[in-house]
């Protein structure tokens, strides 16, 4: 077994998990909404990219670029029309509604696309790789990882260097006082979910080109996303990337020892981090 190779592959896989997690963490950080349909929304976006790519004969990257504004609009409307109504002192309604949404999306996709597993074709890129010394790195996993870093840099820029980002953080701190600044919380929340759906679309592009997917695989992606967010500590996007990498490396090491242990190793690593650092590795100071 080549340890270096295993770890590198794990880090790159962690990029995918960070992409799953960034949108989830974004929404939770701003409005304390746990979106149980997050994984299914990733799968929904993957089908949308597949549909655009196959119907219009586009490269998956162009198809994903077309899907980005559509998913933003979908997320905006979903939050504004549905999820905003569930927010309040009680934490149960958003959980119930997004759980229901998860079932609706899965069954809608089954109805529309059948239970067959699909893949977004990426042509020669699927098998392309680059050689770095003793380690061979797949081009798509590398692109996935670089995209994860790009997404996190972009989210940090938005959060800490724009009016919108200040409004996100102010609303998260104190919704009523944010209103006194002219911030309309319902629209801020809708924009946040729209943004999260753009991240979801990028995650879906790499999920769909990397391996087969089918309408029922959303909930497992949700778990990875959760684990990455929690390992990283709520409120830190770089922490989420670290969480994704820890999860990815654990899984590849587990799989290298025994292929049956891949998934289990990730969950065990998650539990170990929770035992040692219950608030995650990089928790936000104010919470």
């Amino acid at each position: 077994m080549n340890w270096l190779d295993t770890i590198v592959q794990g880090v790159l896989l962690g990029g995918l998990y960070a992409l799953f997690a960034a949108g989830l963490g974004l929404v939770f950080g701003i409005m304390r909404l746990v979106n149980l349909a997050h994984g299914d929304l990733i799968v929904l976006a993957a089908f949308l990219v597949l549909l655009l790519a196959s119907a219009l004969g586009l490269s998956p990257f162009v198809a994903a670029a077309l899907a980005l504004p559509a998913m933003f609009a979908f997320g905006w409307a979903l939050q504004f029309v549905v999820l905003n109504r569930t927010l309040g002192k009680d934490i149960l309604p958003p959980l119930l509604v997004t759980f229901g949404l998860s079932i609706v999306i899965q069954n809608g996709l089954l109805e529309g696309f059948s239970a067959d597993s699909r893949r977004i074709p990426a042509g020669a890129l699927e098998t392309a790789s680059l050689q770095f010394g003793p380690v061979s790195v797949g081009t798509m996993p590398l692109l996935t990882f670089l995209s994860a870093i790009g997404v996190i840099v972009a989210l940090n820029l938005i959060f800490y260097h724009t009016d919108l980002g200040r409004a996100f953080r102010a609303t998260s701190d104190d919704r009523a006082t944010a209103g006194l600044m002219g911030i309309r919380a319902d629209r801020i929340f809708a924009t946040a979910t729209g943004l999260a759906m753009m991240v979801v679309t990028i995650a879906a592009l790499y999920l769909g080109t990397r391996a087969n997917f089918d309408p029922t695989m959303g909930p497992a992606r949700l778990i990875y996303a959760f684990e990455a967010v929690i390992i990283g500590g709520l409120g830190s996007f770089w922490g989420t990337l670290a969480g994704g990498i820890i999860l990815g490396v654990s899984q590849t090491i587990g799989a290298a020892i025994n292929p049956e242990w891949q998934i289990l190793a990730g969950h065990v690593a998650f539990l170990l981090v929770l035992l040692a650092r219950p608030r995650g590795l990089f928790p936000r100071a104010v919470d």
Partner: protein
Amino acid sequence: MSLLETQGLTAFYGDFQALFGVDLRLEEGETLAVIGANGAGKSTLMRSICGLIANSADQIRFEGRGIGALAAPDIVRLGIAMVPEGRKLFPSLSVEENLLVGCYGRSGRVWTLDTIYDLFPVLKERRDSPATALSGGQQQMVAIGRALMSNPRILLCDEISLGLAPVVIRDIYAAFPKIRAGGASIVVVEQDIGQALAVADRVYCLMEGRVTLTGTPSSLTRDAIHAAYFGAHTT
């Protein structure tokens, strides 16, 4: 037509009725003080005007237009800014970010980051600190600066001297002439009657949700204020 007017304003604080028909008017350029004991309805009055409490539209008029039913984000855009009781700074934001978020809904030329820093120079030194790391008086300056960033026509100040040392309160009120010169009319809610009389052109005294006394500071005697503040039977 007055700049701001309430007519028979009734409002609730939770399940309790806190205001029973309050008539108040604010003219352009004026500074009003609203005084009264704890529970007199002062804060409920302010929260009603700034849109944190919904009322029927016609009970609050801004330049003749009924605004009582509007929500806070719409009220700010009209030019009514609030310095909330307890300051309510955003702990995740630095001092400068707290100020910047103040012009999210509305901005103008008079009050910008630079002119706020001229008004309260100490804030410039602490611009990158978390807002909640500042002293109470400095936090109050941030809260006032944040409200001014929207270049309001009307500035509402809810209990800005609460919990501050007298010397700090004096520093903060020293900024008021400049705020007035910047074009804002002001309503202050104060428990400190001396401070209220010193800063205001006219005073309203509330007791149990009703206006019990109104007039210019020079026209009000100590006894009249005492009676209006605590109730006539105690004199």
